[in-house]
């Protein structure tokens, strides 16, 4: 195999310093681990590199992708009043989810990787792996109906201004995936906030609104399903009476935990059969992914644990105060709603934007938990707080590290 790789490299490698060479190098090193040997320094190197680190996070996200795809379809059919059982018409729900998700995934990667390749070529270094994870995270934190041009714009904004402007992978201050979401949040708020956007396939979220299907539903997939004799997409359906598309958090803000439980059961919220961003609704899927990156040692347990403590502590304080229905929601039920676990497992633990000292990580996680809960409960404009609290603490992470390092420096100076 090593010889085949050598042949490929010898015959196909384009001239150095061209965009083609950058692209060739990226794909070649993806296919074949390079033949470089150690020089000045250690003579053997660990089998771990950045590609492997990143791909393990992507592997951890796969369950979220599967459940997320399914849930897009499940919410769609729930709104239509069809196939309301969680395991009914699995093929239709998955097919519907794929039709929504695949374009989002493609746009994210074409835009993001395109920019990444271009900058790698401009700066004359090889393409770095940062976008592997960012590109896998962005589709999961978007609503299923996100207009693709807005998505492309937000990815370009996040990658260029959030990362390349600072010097590329490893240099960014803010979490790139969250930055792209924050961009949409402030530039096009109606596409990513409120009760209207979490269920896919309708022009408006009012009862009686008619479903919109395209050729992929009625032509491509119906053709396949008809051939095997399964149920089909049925154009002309309308949203049933009483369906609002509101998320548990939206309901809780209005009427506390009782308002939530009137619409959604605890197990629905736990397993993720609720409207929300694509990949964050299913707690078991997220937690299995979290366990995977914890066991493999890729994510920091310090950040995760302290974030849970911070959020729980703040929710308890709110319980004690109890000034609004949302504040009275028992603190442990706060974890059933919203995207806390997804933010904890995959967003806060991004090693580049998080605090980098062990003690700093504990403070960082604690503050994300506390601030995120404040934003969630006390702020009428933002129904979920983790994106904003993580971005805020991203900015403060260097400051936290600074004080941790200063204490280390002072300790050493005192010895003199």
């Amino acid at each position, binding site marked *: 195999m090593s010889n085949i790789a050598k042949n490929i490299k010898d015959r196909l490698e384009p001239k150095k310093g061209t965009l083609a060479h950058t692209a060739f190098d990226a794909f070649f090193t993806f296919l074949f*681990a390079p033949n470089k040997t150690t020089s000045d320094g250690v003579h053997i190197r660990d089998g771990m590199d950045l*590609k492997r680190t990143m791909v*393990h996070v992507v592997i951890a996200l796969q369950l979220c992708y599967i459940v997320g795809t399914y849930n897009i379809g499940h919410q769609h059919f729930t709104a239509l009043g069809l196939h309301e059982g969680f395991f009914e018409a699995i093929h239709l729900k998955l097919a519907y989810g794929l039709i929504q998700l695949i374009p989002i995934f493609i746009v994210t990667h074409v835009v993001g990787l395109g920019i990444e390749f271009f900058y790698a070529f401009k700066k004359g270094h090889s393409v*770095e792996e940062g976008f592997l994870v960012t590109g896998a995270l962005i589709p999961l934190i978007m609503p299923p109906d996100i207009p693709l041009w807005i998505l492309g714009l937000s990815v370009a904004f996040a990658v260029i201004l959030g990362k390349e402007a600072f010097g590329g992978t490893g240099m960014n201050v803010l979490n790139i995936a969250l930055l792209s979401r924050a961009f949409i949040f402030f530039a096009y708020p109606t596409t990513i906030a409120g009760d209207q956007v979490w269920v896919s396939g309708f022009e408006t979220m009012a009862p009686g609104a008619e479903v919109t299907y395209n050729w992929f539903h009625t032509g491509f997939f119906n053709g396949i399903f008809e051939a095997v004799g399964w149920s089909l997409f049925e154009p002309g359906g309308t949203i049933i009476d009483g369906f609002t598309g509101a998320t548990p958090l939206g309901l809780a803000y209005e009427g506390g935990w009782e308002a939530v439980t009137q619409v959604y059961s605890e197990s629905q919220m736990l397993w993720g059969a609720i409207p929300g961003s694509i990949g964050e609704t299913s707690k078991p899927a997220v937690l299995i992914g979290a366990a995977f990156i914890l066991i493999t040692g890729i994510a920091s347990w310090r950040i995760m644990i302290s974030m849970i403590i911070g959020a729980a502590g703040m929710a308890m304080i709110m319980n004690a105060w109890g000034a609004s229905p949302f504040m009275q929601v028992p603190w442990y039920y706060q974890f059933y709603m919203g995207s806390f676990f997804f933010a904890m497992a995959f967003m806060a633990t991004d090693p580049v934007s998080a605090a980098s000292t062990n003690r700093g990580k504990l403070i960082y996680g604690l503050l994300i938990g506390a601030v995120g809960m404040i934003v969630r409960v006390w702020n009428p404009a933002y129904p979920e707080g983790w994106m904003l609290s993580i971005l805020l603490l991203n900015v403060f992470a260097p400051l936290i590290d600074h004080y941790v390092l200063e204490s280390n420096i002072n300790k050493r100076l005192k010895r*003199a």
Partner: protein
Amino acid sequence: MKHYISKIYLALPFLLVWFPTYAIAQGGSGFSWGSYGLVAAAVIAVLGAVVVVSDNLLKVEAKRSGVDLKSSGGSSFSGINRLFKGSLPKYLSGQAVVELSKGYNIPLKGEIKEQKQIEEVHTKRYALQPPNYRGIRPIPKLEIEEGATVKAGDPVFYDKSNPDIKYASPISGEFVELQRGAKRAITNLVFLADKETEYREIPNFDIENQARADLKKHLMAYGCWPLLNKRPFDVIADPSEDPKNIFISTFDTAPLALDMNIAVDGREEDFQKGLDVLNKLTDGTVFLGLDGRNSTPPSKAFTDAEGVQKIYFRGPHPAGNVGVQIHHIEPLSTTDVVWTLDVQNVITLGGVFNQNKFIADRIIALVGAQVEEPTLIKTKVGASLNEILDSRLQEGDNRIINGNVLSGEKKEGDHMYLNASSNQITVIPEGDYYEPFGWLIPNKLRPTVSRTYPNFLIPGLKFKGDTNTHGEKRAFVVTGQYEKLLPMDIYVQHLMKAIMINDFERMEGLGISELSEEDVALAEFACTSKMPLQKLLREGLDYVKSQM
């Protein structure tokens, strides 16, 4: 680590107050299985908090009453920890023991299987290599001309910045060739060795009664001074300074390292004499770091050494590094200067005073996956590696390393000579190959500290290890990785960043003067971003030195 946990627990009182209220208030229908789990977690947290707090109080109490923390720890956990780690061997009872948990032993193939007799190898060619002595200028001044004959111990060259320090010949023979490298720096002074080594007679020196200044002069004149290294910077000691303390590590934890108990075997008296000389050189203490990892005690030469303070260390590599031991015995301040020596250098030093000869013998472990039969060799500093390795290596593209795989020096070509202060030669295969999807599905086993490989589930697994980098260099991304592998209170990654931007104050504050290349070598091995940490550290040390 423990004190972090205790701090979390201390932040928890509010949980204790509010949780029961709400758990009870939610009783009945709202009280789901999840809440039971949380009750259990809360109970465990409370118990943990109580235990940790009381343990801390115990420690404070112990400190007040003057209990030696190093031996007992003063903590009720030391007993609990024992349960998990197995009991301490008998010979450690009553001794000062430092237990280190951070670090990693890289399991490599090619260790010495059975302890057979040490093979004595006397090569035809020897070379004195000025680049071995860190801190001297690249073009030293020669004392002899080509064609001259020398005895072992005769001065060969000196450094112009310090002409009193003589560098002595390890063997007797004829000086045949001077070899130069880049920028005309002298790399090798090659000798054709006599069959029987003739020694220069060194005059007696009365350590008891003569002054320290005379002793220093004696050491410099007879080639002993280059045996002394100083920290900070890990360079040859400066005769104008007196060290605060002197540290000697009597064991090496690096991969496939030489067992120092063998090196000292038969030279116990010289070793003790060396320690006596060192005691004369410092007003402080001579510290001996001893191996406490095994069930049997180390050599009597170490355990019964006189006039020194002995501290046992237990733990994975780099517990045997003298830098790590200094950090746990008496950490350096930014102004301290200490000296360090390697066991075989202490023996050479002792030999000068005991036998009146400069005996530059080295016991070398010839190890690694590419060595036909790993073995112990006795030779002298500067021996020709080409001659030693001849017909001992397996076929193939080999990497010959003077030292261990982490911090050793690569040797190649027709002029390979044994470095001064070396204890092992490691030979491993080169890793010049492409690997399809090697980053995702490795085609063969490789050593790693990462749990993304199943290696950690299979204890006892040993690896051939090759020189492939297994990835390309990247910017720093992963954090907290280096700290797991260095049992010192030093933020290595931040220190490296400070070096990259030439921030002098931060380098010093973050403890650059406590480190040497070998200390960060393990972190460099594990580095996900494939950063050249040792090279960076030396650049930083050179920069700090130039600013002083």
